[in-house]
């Protein structure tokens, strides 16, 4: 650790920090004040016909408060529930981030983001500091990243056993939001002796690992409209600190150098990733081009998840015309995997997206959207079974015209929507199984009597899903009411939906009821009652078509101060 520090400080940082709020201006009012809210919720649940889908009763108490002491702000958050488990991340968390002017301290469970490669929102239990005077930033966070977990049998392979893991992340940056250069580094290591432990469930050996990630980023703005930005990260990951395997390529000089920072052996892997983008933005038009490369297996202990083995290009134009009444944005990109030629096939994905929002008149407008993901695999080796070659496209198209008419007495909102999602498989072997088409059509009308504060909504929704197993067709009829009383202090909403669902297994009628009452007698207190009823009544109840009814009642109270 001590050896690491000079390196750590030599590296620079990236991005903005997490959750401390800037509060220095509100300190004039009174030297000590506390504000925030505490939220208590109880949820009761009962079901007949099927196994319980949640606990019969659960509660949660969470609070977000902000204590201000002579200009020093101490935000505090906590969550308490009966649901605490001994998982890698405890359910119940507590943390605070006092802030004074440009200095912020962090303690407790915090998730900060330094860079997409080093520390990116990973929750740590520890302490941190952010020093951000104008034009300069230095941030550091040290703490536990995982706590050693006992095995939860319900989780199975999905939640692997883990060691307690501690890490240090540092970020150093200069510049402002428009022009900056930031470097950051993360160094994390499992707190274990070098001996692996066998996961009693998966029977796999879990070995203590170590990881060092460095990252650099810059952004440059040329004039008002043009910018260039890039960032890159490199990760060195030793899968097993205690491995006896030697590094195969011992001639590589910098392996020795790295060894000074972290354990390096035959299980050590090295990856890098980078991204560069340039763009033009103006009021009416913007265009952005981005290139991204991620090594296969790119991992970082400070990042929850990385989509890796990617080489992608993306172009995203957007238009904004007629005084913001016509908005069109889209992107098209090509994404390839197998960047290191170690897959049997290289899969190319073409990702297209377009969104249109057009207010044709003040009352009438249209939203439309289109997304398409098509994937195509090309073999890189001679013998690949066809069934492994992916050739399919997922597309989604939606079209939503809307009509809104409102004056001080009434408002009418009519929305229609058509949504079609399809998966088309071009692989002759798998297409019969994979092809899926889903269509949703809805028509919705809401009438609001403004003075009575009453809204009535009627809607019809038709959803059809064509799968290999058959066609599922749902027709839903909704009637909803929403009313305010006492100048909005009491809000009640009632939503009834009846759905007839036809599928290969038969027909079923589903009744959904939602009642929600919200009462806020003053600024400080809010009571909420929510009741949902789900009643599924198949025409012919069977093992596959189960008749069931679910009641969920939730009572909540929020104290704001």
């Amino acid at each position, binding site marked *: 650790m001590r050896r690491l520090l000079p390196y750590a400080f030599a590296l620079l940082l990236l991005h903005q920090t997490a959750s401390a709020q800037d509060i220095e201006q509100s300190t004039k009012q009174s030297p000590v004040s506390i504000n925030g809210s505490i939220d208590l919720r109880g949820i009761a649940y009962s079901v007949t016909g099927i196994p319980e889908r949640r606990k019969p009763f659960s509660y949660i108490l969470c609070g977000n408060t902000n204590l201000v002491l002579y200009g020093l702000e101490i935000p505090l958050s906590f969550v308490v529930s009966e649901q605490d488990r001994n998982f890698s991340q405890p359910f119940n968390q507590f943390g605070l981030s006092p802030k004074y002017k440009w200095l912020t301290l962090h303690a407790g469970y915090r998730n900060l983001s330094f860079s997409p490669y080093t520390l990116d929102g990973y929750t740590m239990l520890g302490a941190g500091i952010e020093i951000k005077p104008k034009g300069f930033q230095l941030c550091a966070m040290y703490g536990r990243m995982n706590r050693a977990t006992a095995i939860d049998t319900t989780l199975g392979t999905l939640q692997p056993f883990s060691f307690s893991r501690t890490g240090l992340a540092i970020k150093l940056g200069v510049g402002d939001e428009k022009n900056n250069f930031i470097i950051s580094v993360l160094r994390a290591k499992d707190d274990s002796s070098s001996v692996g432990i066998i996961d009693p469930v998966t029977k*796999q050996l879990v070995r203590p690992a170590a990881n060092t990630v460095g990252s650099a980023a810059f952004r440059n703005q040329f004039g008002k409209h043009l910018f260039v930005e890039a960032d890159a990260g490199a990760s060195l990951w030793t899968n097993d600190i205690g491995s006896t395997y030697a590094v195969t390529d011992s001639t590589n000089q910098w392996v020795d150098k790295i060894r000074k920072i972290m354990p390096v052996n035959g299980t050590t892997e090295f990856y890098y990733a980078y991204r560069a983008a340039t763009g033009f933005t103006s009021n009416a038009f913007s265009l952005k081009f981005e290139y991204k490369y991620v090594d296969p297996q790119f991992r970082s202990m400070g990042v929850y998840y990385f989509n890796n083995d990617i080489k992608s290009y993306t172009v995203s134009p957007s238009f904004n015309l007629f005084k913001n009444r016509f908005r069109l944005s889209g992107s098209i990109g090509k994404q390839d995997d197998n960047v290191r030629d170690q897959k049997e096939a290289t899969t190319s994905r073409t990702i297209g997206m377009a969104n249109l929002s057009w207010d044709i008149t003040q009352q009438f407008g249209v939203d439309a959207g289109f997304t398409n993901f098509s994937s195509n695999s090309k073999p890189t080796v001679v013998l690949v079974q066809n069934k492994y070659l992916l050739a399919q496209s997922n597309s989604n198209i939606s079209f939503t015209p809307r009509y809104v008419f409102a004056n001080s007495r009434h408002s009418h909102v009519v929305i229609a929507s058509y949504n079609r999602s399809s998966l088309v498989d071009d692989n002759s072997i798998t297409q019969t199984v994979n092809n899926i088409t889903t269509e949703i059509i809805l028509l919705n009308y809401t009438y609001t009597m403004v003075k009575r504060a009453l809204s009535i909504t009627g809607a019809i929704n038709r959803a059809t*899903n064509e799968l290999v197993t058959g066609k599922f067709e749902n027709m839903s009829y909704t009637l909803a009411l929403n009313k*305010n009383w006492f100048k909005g202090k009491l809000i009640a909403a009632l939503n009834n939906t009846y759905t007839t669902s036809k599928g290969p297994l038969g027909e079923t009628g589903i009744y959904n009821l939602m009642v929600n009452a919200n009462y806020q007698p003053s600024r400080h207190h809010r009571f909420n009652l929510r009741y949902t009823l789900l009643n*599924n009544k198949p025409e012919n109840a069977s093992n596959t078509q189960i008749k069931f009814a679910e009641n969920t*009642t939730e009572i909540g109270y929020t104290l704001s101060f």
Partner: protein
Amino acid sequence: MKRKLLPFLLLMLLAYAHTLQAQVTVTTNIAPPYSSKLSDYASTPGKVFITLTNTSPSGSMKVYLRATITGTNNNVKIATKSNFRPTQPLILQAGIPYMVDLQTLTTLFDVNSFDLQNITASQIFLKNGLPEGDYSFCVRAYNFDLPTLPVSSGSPFGCTNVRLTQLEPPILIKPFDKETKFSNSNTNVQNIIFNWGIPAGAEPGTQYVLRIIEMLDPSKNPNDAMNSKTTPAFFETTTSANIVLYGPAQPALVEGRKYAWAVTALPGIQGTAYKNNGRSEVRSFTYNQPPLPPPPPPKPANLVQLTYPANNEIVKPYLDTFFFTPQKKTYLTWDFDKSINASNQQVIVVLIKNGQTPEQAIKSNPNVISTKEPSKSAFFDVGIYEGEKLAWQVNITDVKGKLYSSDVQTFSVTPASVTLIYPKDKDFVPDAVIHFQWVNSASLYKGQNGKEYVLTQKPTIVEIKKGQTPADAIKQNTNLYTNGEQGWNLTDIDLSAYSGKRMAWKAESWRDGKSATSSIDTFTVIDFDKSLKNFTTFNLCGYPITVTSISNTQGFNYKGTGTTTLYKNGPIVQVAFSELTIQPFGSVKNNSGKVTAYTDWKATMVLDSVKAVNFKKQSINLSIIQKNISGSFTFEASKLVFAPSIITHWDNTEGHFIDVVKFINPNLTDADYAPNIVGKFKWVSEFLNKDDKGAIKMAEFTSQDDQTFKFDYNQKIPAGTESGSLILNGDVTVLLKPAMQANTEIALSAFLKMDKNLQANFTMAGWYKIICPADSKKTINVDFYDKSEMEFDRSYDAGWNIALNKDASCNALFNTVHLNLSNNPNKIFGITIPQMKVVINDHSNLKQHPEFIFTSVPVNGTDGIKLNESRNIAAANQNIQFYGFDLILKKITCNINKSELAQFKMEGSYTIPFINQKSTYTFIIDKNSLGNANLSFDNVQTNTLYNDPDKGDKCTFKPTFASMEFTKIALNGNFNFSNKVAGKHLNVSGIASPKFAISPDGILSMYDAYSPDMGNTATNPAGDFNGFKFTPYKMTMGKYLTQSTYVLKLSGIMVLADNFSSKNSTNNFTTEVTFDANTITTGGVAYSRKDFATFKEYHHYIKGLDNKSVSFTSQADAGSDNESSSFTGAKLTYYDSDGTYGTGFKAELGFSLKSPVDPTQPTQSVNAILWVGHKQEGYNYWFLEAGQKNVVTIQTGILDLAINGFKGRIFYHMRHDGDNINNSKYYPDNSKFMGVYAQVNLITSTDKGIKFWGDVAMEVLTNNSGLESIKLLGNGTFISQGEGTDGIIKAKDCKLNLYWSPKKATGDFNVELNAASQITISANAGFEIGDGIFHIWGSGSGSMFGQPAPATCGFDLDKEQIRVYGDFKMIDINWHNGGLFCDDDIVVNSGVKMDASFHYKPFQFTGSGTFYGNAKVQECGVTVFSIGLSLNAQLQFPSPTCVSAGLSIFGFDFDAGIRNGGLIFEKCF
């Protein structure tokens, strides 16, 4: 066969070879998933299983292992180095399988000990493993001591084939990360698509686990949330597709909540390995941000409103140029809601200091207004605050001391100024002595400290030399004014030396601490040709005036006399033009010594007497109306000012005027003078104002602006303090009527704007307000507030509209608006009253409602008067009246919004087209249509309806689009009606004073006599009436409303018997025949069937027969004396193919007789019914009833009971409806046979403290198979001794029925106990006993002191079980609060309900107890919220023994029928 055998033989051979060297068998197994990392195999326990078995008989062996990994589709080959041999051997005991341990594997799969082909170690390092592909893992055992000697067989023995992969986890597609909006955003129908991409290279059939968890703390990281998820997960499903449709049957997602989700690909059958254990990234989404709640009700406007000045208005102190003294004060005005009973009104006006907000200023600065207790307005000396910004607020205290405050508003006052009056900028002045005038603003004279100052003033008047700007000239040139400083604001300067020069001037004024300077104005000095005096004629707006004398007054002003004719060939009238102003527009151009002047001129022509001029020509719009004047009003002058406009302009470069005189109305020609008065009217008027003591004050008004008449009472008439006269120097003629009354309050200032070409007469009185600024042409905006009474007379050209309250901000309320249309009789008038509804609603609780009255309108126009629904008629309770003028209308089109108009009334002489007669009439349309519209004809006049069928039929009279059902045209007199018009089959003659109704379509019909106000009853209509001969006292016939039925009603005086009636002064007899027919022919009453709507209820009409019939009803009413008697219920009803009754008749007769001796005795009555009919189904029925009551009384000898009446019925093929004795309905029914019913009326014959009266009946019914039932029915009222008329105990509606087959007896008894209405108990008991039936029940409830009883309880006993139950109230609170606007109620009650039942055999007990509570909140009588909660527990034993408890929520006051919900705990043992 051979072919198949060959491989087998080869295999055998191989096996043989194997056994030769194979002393050891090696089996290799690898557990999936198959990672492409070698190290995973080397060091993972349980991953690779290698079993060695020593098959040699020679005992233990020392061996070591070598491995080969061969890629079958990528040529990669990895084999243990040839020189490799571990340090320790594996020792295999004979026959005992040896499992290779992890340490051995680690050694075996160390990459450093491999020989590599087609791949390098660094590639493995950099690529993180072997390339994907199908691999063969082979392990072979070698002799440890002889390292090159294999002891196990080679491939395929000891090998296993695997597919090495390291696939990406699924890529999530939808929902997008942090998505908040779903396609179902507005419906709440749950239908979300979870969609992810299939990992490239995944096996077909790969399974995916979708897991969704609810993020209880939305601020948390979704990864954390997923890692610390609840158990079970919110939703989890395994699928082999890459999509999950999350539909309505899935657990409900809650709007606004955040959820995290991830997809995990499970290893396939072939052990496909995925990175990150197959788990995708974790995404979050928020399920549909909650929809915006309905906007809260708009914040009610502050009850106290500041009206003038408006917020942030810049107020300009009024400069009175007439007297040249500054007008200092203005009025601050405000208003407050009528609901405030104000006792004190405090105005706070403060100066705003630097940096202060208006609110701070109000709090901390001194109040600068000193008015005491003003009402809705207060003087404020705005002039002394010139240049300041002020804040103000009004606090109103009501009689209870409650304070209402307005918002704080601000206004600014324009800075101190000097304004030049004469000459005006760019003016022309003659080359003579000119009277220069200017005026100073108020604060120059008076300081905020109250001090009055004397001003020092000085004008600067200079010539502008060539190339100078006016400002330069002021600075550089010699001031013509040489007297230095002075104390007054006018001065005379001789400009005779400056003819033809342009001049500039300014004025400045100063005093201690303050000064102001005017702008710099320019003017031109002209040498005017005075020979103009000599002209003899000029044309004044088309009127050629011959000048008989003319004289110059001052400058360019002349006066004189002349003659003219006001229209072609008209009489010559004398005129005097007192103010002929000839204004040179400039330049005087010296042309050969002559001077040409282009002029603009104005003349005021004073006619001798305007009223004396007989303007016959219709096109002349010239009238001055002086009417309805009362009080002390003086109409002082009636001068007409003719001022045609001239358009020209000064050309600076040329130095002269261009263009010549043009009239603004190009249609004016000399040939036809005075087609319309074009020009400006000026007249001066004044009115007097009386103060409290009766002294007359004169008020003065001046309007300077040509176009705008500012009518600011408050400013002009500070009550009792100032006086003056009103001068309207513009386009308006204003008449004030009556004079301002004492104590008249003028609430607010306003102005009235009129375009030219108009003449308007206003007659105003009372308390009113005008505030409608409007600038659109052709529109007058007027706003009259509160109790005004206003006559509004003006004439219009075609196409003009009067817009009242066009701007919704205006408040207007008219009591009366008189609209004089007399000046433009041939024009079409549109009267637009938009937005009236808004205004009227604001004042809807006033007692008086606005009326619009159109007077003296001889409307001959082709289009009549158009009142269009969309434009003309507005508010509720609004009246429109046409009074007292001749009206010859071909058509009245009046589209009226019926729901809003209160009344439309026309009075006057009126020619009705369809009868071609003139008539006086009162004609009112109210919101019900043309209701109460009486059209009266004098009976001295002979009127003929439809005497000319052509005319008659062509006429239309459709006052509304609705029908005229209630319209009545009364024809009073002797009339002859003919029915010459085809289809009008009515011939009535010689009828004295009949009343008939004329329907909107012109059809004359005799209307139903019963409808309200429909007096179409012919009195003494002796004579022939369509073949009937009648001589009744009164005859009525008509249709009711739109029905097709005619009712013939005869009524008169009927003498029944000597003793029975002396009531002969009014009708005592009514007979009514109803015909279901739509025509009456001369051949008599033609009866034809026709379906018609349900009858309205009439007292003699038979109800309940819901189809075609003819009824005959007759009744004779007794007089008011004791000997009266009457026939009642004499009815004959005829059925014709009736759906229920078939064809037949029913005759009913009743006769009742009051005792002539003792009127307190019960009325004796006898009745009989005979009813015979035939049903279409092919059977007959009949019914006979006879009865009497109080005719005979028979003592029974039992309990003092006597029979005082009886009734018997016998009926055939009929069914009695129901078991109730009070129900006497019978219906034909073929399944029944004969029935007999006997009823006896019982009464206690003497009053011994207990009274009873009631009926007992027995009914025996048979059907086609024999006896059906015997019923004993009872309905008695038993009153025990007690207080009040109802006594203490009462029994009623008791019933005992005996059924024959199957045999059954039922009874139902109700008893009520009432102790002086303070404690009541009502109980019900009953039984049902019969074959196999045994059931007894009872229950009771009651009340105490007006409240419902604290308990109700009951029991229910039958053969199998007994049940007892009760309901005990614990809390019953009714809270009532009279709220601000309406009442609020809260009702809370709760109680306990117990219910237990014991089942006898087998024994079973079921019991329950419920605690319940209800709460209901009502606002304004409407239930706002109601909820009930109940906690209940049930116990059941012994088989099964169950305990359950629950909480339920019910009673939501929603129409959707939601009643139940909650939680149930249930456990059976």
